[in-house]
């Protein structure tokens, strides 16, 4: 045990490990806050769809040789999130069909673009790294950490400020509208925030595994708690704990960071499920 602690102390001396832990905690926190709303609104798979959109946008940025791909990836992902969340109910192709269509189309187009205009010799490595995260979280620069911190702070502040509106929109949009709430504006806010979270989370777990960060903590928390506030707090705590544990396990054992975090989330869900069953919840 002391050897393990010594090894962790040794690893913590490296700035990139500290960056990984900071960014991991921030992303886990933000994704879990929004996760509760998305799960309750039955938009669990929107994370998957938008992360594929982000992958497609990243491919375009790569083809265009953009110095900072975030400038393109973030607006495109936000735009698609708005289309899915705000216009989804009023179009002919709606709900899960729209998510599925957008998801596979952007994934396919992204891969096609990367193949046609490959920017380097290791295309498969490039794609694999984007899809599964690999060690992206351990290769962050201080600027990227700062950007992530600012965006995360902004998301938390927005969540706290608009908590009541989010609560109303999450459970009953019609009732919220009847009480004079601007439902479309609230959905727009959710769309912008969730797109930002997903673009940030791609660094942590890769685009294929983003949904896990959104869905697992919320579902686990719903097994333990009943009110919206308690579920949100429990979800945030679980998500941060699992992200930290996953990152630490992966750097100690040399396993892929993204899949280790998701495995930790799955493990936590199973434990919580058993606890809830045993306690009769």
């Amino acid at each position, binding site marked *: 045990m002391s050897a393990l602690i010594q090894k962790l102390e040794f690893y913590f001396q490296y700035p990139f490990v500290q960056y990984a832990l900071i960014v991991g905690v921030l992303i886990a926190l933000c994704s879990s806050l929004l996760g509760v709303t998305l799960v309750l609104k039955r938009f669990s798979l929107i994370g998957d769809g938008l992360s594929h959109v982000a992958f497609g946008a990243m491919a375009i940025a790569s083809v265009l040789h953009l110095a900072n791909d975030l400038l393109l990836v973030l607006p495109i992902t936000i735009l698609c999130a708005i289309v899915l969340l705000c216009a989804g109910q009023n179009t002919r192709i709606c709900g899960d069909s729209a998510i599925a269509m957008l998801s596979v189309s952007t994934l396919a187009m992204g891969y096609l673009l990367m193949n046609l205009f490959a920017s380097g010799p290791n295309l498969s490595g490039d794609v694999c790294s984007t899809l599964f995260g*690999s060690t992206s979280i351990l290769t962050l620069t201080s600027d990227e950490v700062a950007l992530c911190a600012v965006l995360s702070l902004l998301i938390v502040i927005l969540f706290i400020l608009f908590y009541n509106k989010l609560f109303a929109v999450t459970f009953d949009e019609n009732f919220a509208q009847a009480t004079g709430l601007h439902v479309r504006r609230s959905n727009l806010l959710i769309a912008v925030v969730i797109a930002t979270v997903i673009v940030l989370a791609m660094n942590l777990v890769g685009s294929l595994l983003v949904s896990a960060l959104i869905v697992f903590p919320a579902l686990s928390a719903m097994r333990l708690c009943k009110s919206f506030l308690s579920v949100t707090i429990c979800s945030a705590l679980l998500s941060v704990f699992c992200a930290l544990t996953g990152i630490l396990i992966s750097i*100690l054992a040399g396993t892929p960071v993204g899949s280790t975090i998701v495995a930790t989330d799955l493990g936590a869900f199973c434990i919580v499920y058993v606890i809830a069953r045993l306690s009769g919840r």
Partner: protein
Amino acid sequence: MKRIFLLLALCFLTGCASAAVSDSSSAAPADSSSAVSSAESAHAVDYDLTVMSSDMVYATIYQMITEPEQYAGKTIRMQGLYYAAYAEQKFQYYHYCIVTDALACCAQGIEFVWDDGNHVYPDEYPRDNAPITVQGTFSAQKEETTGNWYCRLENASLNVNE
């Protein structure tokens, strides 16, 4: 951008792993039972990558390539796979220690110069893909025209771990 930079760095510093294999397919197997060389450095090791997990090794080498100034002059010890690549423009072989990430989809590595660089290839070098341990002094030079960094381990010792 980071990914593009990494790939560029790989092109210049290591080449991609598969390219290195094809370039050096004529490499002869070396004596695998014992240490191939040893100008064992008397310096203390500043960064011992052999005691790190694969994630940490990959991330540390990534840092070395992206921020080479910080590691210049440091003694590095690392484990990886040996590859040789032939540079047609310079009519000479370059030797690399390659590591892969945890998913094994990305590979990166560092060129090393064994002792003073007078060892004969392929007679004295290990076969391609042989697990090796290299220890040497990290050096980084920036090419003014392209702005690319060329990093390598100089005056390195080489051991085959078979």
